[in-house]
């Protein structure tokens, strides 16, 4: 196929990709109201595989000439991994929420396709992370389904989390201004991603055991310590995520708004102090206020400017896969992958991504509200909050809604730590959903619950 033919195909297929993604997105939104049949879910999954296949087939011809087999193999591996993951969850864990899995897999597919277009090596490695993530998904499901709050693992978990957060100070490596990356024995990872999971579990443990401030005080101190440690690693994104997880979980669990307000006040004061104390914080805020200002556009505002320009260049439907210049945006394969997707697949695809994240949050919290006990409810809500907040922070950052703090877009960005942690969090939600079903079978009060839900919705 000649380059010209490829370009024509890429232009035409923009609509096909949008159509498939829109269908999956609409199905996901509808599944909030009423659980679809297994066949429907399977159909969405098949469409996702079709999306993967057609996108990789197209990219296979990107260089002109004959199809690049390596590209096709990556696509096939991705599709096979997705299908295997789906079927395994279906068979091993009856009553897991497959809609939720489809939402996260849809995000993952968009990410892998974009990675293949940007840096093919990373796409292949991302498929490997998908396989690893699937194992963590299973682990998360089992954790969510069977874990009970016990003092022993909570305290051990706190110690382990703090130890993990100490690692960057000892073996840390600075990447894009943040010292949050650790390499031990040749394997690199990002401790803050895993501590995020620990934070959700530990907070859920404390809050489910007591609603009294004095008794959950260790949880407050632990969360505060985590935030301070990542702040000193200049990982402001992680700090923001930890804080939001704490705030939402604390409020939901205890309803003690005085403590919430206190935490908010402390964090606000800390943010203001950080603004005046640290140059890198001030630079972020300045770049957010007006990234196009003289002296900012080519400096601290460069990333955000290039991100906005990339998105604007694609327009509603995008420039077509492989026909834009998304590589002009720094970190297009990790933190800024949203801009790259928007440039080539369109602003509409960007909106679809936002809707998918909103569905993830809504569905996660809906499952949390049906949980039979406070602990299950809180780990499930905590996981949904963690994914939702992280998505919001980076999406808001690259669209200039809030100051940019570099975190990965869960499921979409390239990154092993992020992928494993995100799938584990998803697993927690799935596990709680299974638990709900189990208890619902025993108590058979689902009907009442259903009615109340309806009232709440109105």
């Amino acid at each position: 196929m000649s380059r010209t033919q490829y370009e024509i195909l890429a232009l035409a297929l923009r609509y096909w990709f949008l159509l498939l993604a829109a269908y999956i997105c609409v199905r996901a939104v509808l599944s909030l109201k009423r659980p679809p049949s297994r066949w429907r879910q399977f159909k969405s999954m098949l469409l996702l595989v079709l999306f993967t296949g057609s996108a990789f087939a197209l990219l296979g011809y990107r260089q002109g000439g004959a199809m690049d087999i390596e590209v096709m193999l990556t696509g096939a591996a991705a599709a096979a991994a997705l299908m295997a993951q789906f079927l395994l969850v279906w068979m091993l864990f009856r009553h897991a929420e497959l809609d939720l899995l489809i939402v996260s897999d849809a995000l993952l597919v968009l990410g892998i396709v974009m990675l293949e277009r940007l840096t093919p090596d990373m796409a292949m490695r991302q498929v490997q992370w998908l396989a690893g993530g699937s194992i963590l998904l299973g682990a998360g499901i089992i954790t969510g389904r069977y874990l009970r709050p016990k003092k022993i693992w909570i305290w051990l978990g706190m110690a382990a989390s703090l130890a993990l957060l100490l690692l960057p100070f000892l073996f840390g490596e600075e990447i894009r201004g943040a010292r949050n990356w650790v390499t031990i024995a040749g394997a690199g990872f990002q401790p803050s991603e895993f501590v995020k999971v620990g934070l959700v579990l530990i907070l859920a443990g404390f809050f489910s055991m007591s609603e009294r401030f004095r008794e959950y005080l260790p949880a407050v101190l632990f969360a505060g310590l985590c935030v301070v440690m990542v702040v000193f690693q200049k990982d402001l994104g992680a700090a923001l995520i930890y804080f939001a997880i704490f705030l939402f979980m604390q409020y939901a669990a205890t309803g003690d708004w005085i403590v919430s307000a206190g935490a908010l006040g402390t964090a606000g004061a800390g943010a203001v102090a950080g603004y005046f104390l640290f140059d890198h914080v001030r630079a972020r805020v300045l770049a957010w206020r007006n990234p196009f200002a003289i002296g900012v556009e080519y400096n601290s505002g460069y990333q955000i400017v290039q991100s906005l320009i990339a998105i604007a260049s694609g327009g509603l439907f995008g420039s077509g896969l492989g026909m834009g210049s998304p590589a002009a945006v720094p970190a297009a394969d990790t933190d800024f992958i949203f801009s790259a997707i928007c440039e080539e697949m369109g602003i509409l695809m960007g909106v679809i991504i936002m809707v998918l994240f909103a569905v993830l949050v809504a569905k996660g919290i809906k499952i949390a509200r049906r949980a039979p006990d406070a602990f299950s409810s809180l780990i499930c809500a905590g996981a949904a909050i963690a994914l939702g907040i992280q998505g919001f922070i980076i999406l808001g950052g690259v669209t200039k809604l809030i100051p940019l703090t570099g975190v990965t877009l869960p499921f979409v960005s390239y990154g092993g730590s992020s992928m494993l942690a995100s799938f584990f969090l998803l697993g927690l939600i799935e596990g709680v959903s299974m638990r709900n079903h189990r208890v619902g079978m025993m108590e058979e009060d689902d009907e009442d619950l259903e009615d109340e839900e309806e009232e709440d919705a109105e």
Partner: protein
Amino acid sequence: MNGPLRKRLGLVAMVLLGMYIVLGAYFAYGQLFYGNRWFARTSNPRSHFVTEDPSVVPGDILDRDGERLAYSVTETYQDESGQSHLRLIRDYNPDARAASHVVGFQDPGKGQAGAEAFYSRYLLGYNNNILESIYQKVFLHQEVGNSIALTVDLELQKDVTRIMAGRTGSAVILDAATGDVYAMVSLPNFDPQDVGNVSGDDLVNRATEGLYAPGSVMKIITAASALTNIPGIDARTWDCAGTVDVDDQTIPCYGTHAHGTIDLTQAFALSCNTTFSKIGDELGWDTLRGTARDFGFEYPFLFSDMQLTESQLPETDDLPDDRLAWTAIGQDDVLVSPMHMAMIAACVANNGVMMEPRMLMAVYNRNDRMIRKPGSRRFREVMTPAIAARLKDIMGQVVECGTGTRAAVEGLQVYGKTGTAEKRVDGKLGNNAWFVGFAEKGDKTLAIAVVIEDAGPGETGGGVAAPKAGQMLASAFERITE
């Protein structure tokens, strides 16, 4: 499980979903309203012309009469291995120097500017629909962009440049009713063919990026503020002794000439500094700043057709009286661009409604079929028609019997205001000589702003800028016919 937890989780979900709704709305709003401007940034590598094997050959830039200002020439050549390549050469009208800052340039060393940069979205065909894109890919040997026609007139640009007679400065001529830019001249200009050897200072478009102390042309705004906010101002008189003391500052009239007892019209026509500094102090900083902001000061203009630098006022909420007095007569920290000043004049002529300056007249596709014709856009309503009419009156007096008599032209009704802003450059005293105004003939009204920035100590706005403005207006009415 307990009910309160479920209720609070519902609230948490609401908050999170609310955040996502805000995110989506902001994302869509930003891209829809600012997307094109963001694309036009010179930091966007997609808007740069590619000279070696370009995938798209950029379209032409025409003036309002269809005269080609910039166009693409391609040549094919073979490299050592016998492969044929395409090279893009951007060529310019031999007279394009007179419109150099309008046309702009794309240069690997000097960056991008002017229409060549700002309208690259059209020139490179980024606005094409899918059918056109596919047609070009299937049937054309080489993809081509669209051509654009600008509202400026090359002949008028040449006249204005000639009338400026080599002085450093800028002149802008607008249609008061539509905002169409008929001429935008910045001097010194440059040869677009040879941008690489031009000094950075000469590449600056003084009309839109140059910020000048307005001097007495600021009195248009002070007068508008006084007419709006001081009841019965028309019946009042002031005594001008040639100087006035405010706090420990002495503000003189030009040449400390005493004007005697005068009313507002005479004070404006004779450009009496003492009277206007008194009016400024009477208005107070909040009121005067409010009016100036209505006129567009301290506003980041986000026009779809050009980038215009924000005009500045003293940056304080609490301006002492002496500085306020200087501000009212356009000194202190007031800075304005010639384009903005022309918009202010046009606004007075247009019954108090300020129009956005319009530069893009039409976009033509490769078959010369018009595919886009942007309309004119209102910027904002600055003042009531009654006050605009009164301002027009007193601006007429300036040309009839005041400081701007040399702007008068046979057969035209000219209105305006002169300004002489004193400045010190490298220890030498000098002036910014201004004339800002408009002229009517039939139902057409053209607004003008002229600034000479290298005027000597004796050269006033009325002396050097006003006669040039008159000649330019005369030429503009001749050139712009339809």
